[in-house]
């Protein structure tokens, strides 16, 4: 089956070092527009292995030019979903439509999709150049054209000088770049990335996160990435889908996922969170009151969703939203709980205070280290008051 040529504005490698010319979907946010045609449409996709539903009725729309992340713990089905997009796993039900073409039953070698493998899967017996040229050779691209495009792709990932090396002679970071060059050289409609940075050390990973984002915006290919590293997902993605037990539990921009988790699972999975179980006492237009024995009193929560009064509910509040104060002075906040500093974790840029509340619950509060260590405002066993604004917390289902 012939793969239709990508439109010219997707021509990668054309303006390698120039600024990004087309508008980023980060700003235009096409997913907010219900009439916008999605680039990838995943519809009620199911994959069952034995008696586990690895991917369970997943529906998802991904737009052109997105850097979309599938985030979840191990065994949540994110890799199976990615492998179904690549064509290595055949769905048991549902469909995948890419750019208007139903590819659910199309074999991997005929899909307009390429993949960057977790272990890179570089061919050890071929040079860097031959690895990158592999896809073009399979398509019967003419020799001069192959040479030119391989050169461009290697320049894009800054590996031009290593073209004649074999993968065994490269460092981890260089291999990662070869894998990237090899997977984008065919100008796929979608690039799938399976834990693309997991094999790199921390410093290199952070640098590569931004570089990968920049390259993605330059080449204009839709990226779908699988990761278990939430920091990686937050840094790079236009949107994130959080998965659990084969289902997508929430889709949103990184800040939406972080600040407005829909469920206790998402709140817990992304970042760190303090959770107070309780019962919805009052629901007013601009705030709600939750009676929480765990907190030792009533909590005031900012604008909330459609929970019914009397329902069991959780109040979630992030550690960095908590303010600490000695004996409550200067804390003009609706939520104030007294406690005692139990432990202090010094992280360099911030400190995490573990505070035992009078109710017995332990909460975490993060405070940036604005001064130096000897200016440390609180010491262990000191009596403190923990406070936060109503809008700093959110209601989630228990």
């Amino acid at each position, binding site marked *: 089956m012939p793969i239709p040529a990508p439109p010219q504005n997707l021509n990668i490698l054309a303006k390698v070092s120039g600024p990004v010319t087309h508008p980023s979907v980060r700003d235009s946010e096409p997913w907010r527009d219900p009439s916008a045609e999605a680039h990838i449409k995943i519809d009620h996709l199911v994959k069952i292995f034995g008696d586990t539903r690895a991917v369970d009725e997943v529906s998802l729309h991904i737009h052109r030019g997105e850097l979309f992340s599938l985030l979840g713990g191990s065994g949540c089905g994110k890799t199976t979903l990615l492998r179904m997009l690549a*064509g290595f796993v055949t769905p048991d039900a549902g469909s995948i439509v890419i750019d208007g073409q139903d590819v659910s039953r199309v074999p991997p070698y005929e899909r307009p999709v*390429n993949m960057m493998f977790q272990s890179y899967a570089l*061919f*050890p017996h071929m040079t860097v150049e031959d690895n990158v040229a*592999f896809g073009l050779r*399979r398509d019967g691209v003419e020799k001069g054209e192959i040479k030119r495009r391989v050169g461009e792709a290697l320049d894009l990932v800054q590996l031009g000088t290593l073209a004649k090396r074999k993968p*065994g002679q490269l460092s981890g970071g260089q291999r990662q770049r070869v894998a990237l060059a090899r*997977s984008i050289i065919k100008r796929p409609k979608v690039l799938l990335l399976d834990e693309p940075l997991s094999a790199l050390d921390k410093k290199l990973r952070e640098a590569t996160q931004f570089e990968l984002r920049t390259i993605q915006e330059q080449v204009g290919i839709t990226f779908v990435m699988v990761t278990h590293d939430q920091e990686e997902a937050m840094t790079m993605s236009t949107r994130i889908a959080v998965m659990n037990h084969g289902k997508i539990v929430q889709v949103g921009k990184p800040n939406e996922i972080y600040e407005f988790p829909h469920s206790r699972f998402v709140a817990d999975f992304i970042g760190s969170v303090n959770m107070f179980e309780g019962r919805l006492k009052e629901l007013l237009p601009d705030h709600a009151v939750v009676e929480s024995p765990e907190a030792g009193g009533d909590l005031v929560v900012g604008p909330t969703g459609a929970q019914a009064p009397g329902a069991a509910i959780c109040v979630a509040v992030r550690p960095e939203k908590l303010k600490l104060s000695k004996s409550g002075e200067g804390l003009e906040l609706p939520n104030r709980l007294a406690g005692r500093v139990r432990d202090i974790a010094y992280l360099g840029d911030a400190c995490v205070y573990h505070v035992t509340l009078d109710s017995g619950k332990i909460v975490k509060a993060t405070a940036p280290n604005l001064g130096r260590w000897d200016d440390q405002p609180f010491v262990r066993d000191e009596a403190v008051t923990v406070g936060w604004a109503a809008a700093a917390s959110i209601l989630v289902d228990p």
Partner: protein
Amino acid sequence: MSGFAKAIRARLPGRSLVIGAPYLWLVVFFMVPFLLVVKISFADSDTTIPPYTPLFTLDDDSVLQISLHLDNFLRLFSDDPIYLLAYLSSLRNAAVTTWFCLLIGYPMAYAIARAQPTLRPVLLMLIVLPFWTSFLIRIYAWIGILKDNGLLNNFLIWTGVIDQPLNILNTQTSVYIGMVYAYLPFMVLPLYATLEKLDVSLLEAAMDLGARPMRAFWAVTWPLSLPGVVAGSLLVFIPAVGEFIIPTLLGGADTLTISTQLWSEFFANRDWPMASAVTVVMVALLVVPLMLLQRAQARAADGAAS
């Protein structure tokens, strides 16, 4: 540790002992006997005991006389073409055997390597199982299968494929059948070892980049399994060149191999020097290409060093 034990340890470098043991074994039981064979190959046959002329003699004036008879080697290549024909037919037997073992063994090894992990030990066991029966008995069994009123012919006549028995036994074909049968495990096992280690994601990557399954096989699996192909081919080819039992039992009267030739020189003609010369040339024929191959492999491994 006591001072005594330390002293012992310092004097007996354990590592070189461990490495030295197999070398010592090879020197005593291969190198020395082979040098003796080389020595005999330069003698002339005689009616004495042992039946060859001495290489070194001291005459009455205590002068050391060395008499090197080169005519054994000259005879190999000049007056009688039988030796040359024997070498060629042995090499051809070994080459055909290796080729068919590869042809049959590669798909077998591939299938085992891709089978369910729980099933693999069973399949490997089936490959190794024939070794539990004596080699000689297994080759005799083939006589029962291949002879004119044997299992194979009876079966084919019963099914009506043929009405006259095929004459297979005591032909070149039956030698090939026996040799391929006997040497197949030596091909399958090293092939399995390389194929099993092969990263499946490499094949996926090839398919992802547009290679159909066959194309992916030739571009990725085959080149990466070459070390196994070479190892298996050597394991089959080298012993197949010197194979004696199978051509003797399954081959016809006219089956000529270097091992049968060796046997008749040694036992029928009682010409030890000639038999030794035949042996020396055969070893040289096998060792030289082997060394070249190993050098080539070492160079290839250098190139792909990780």
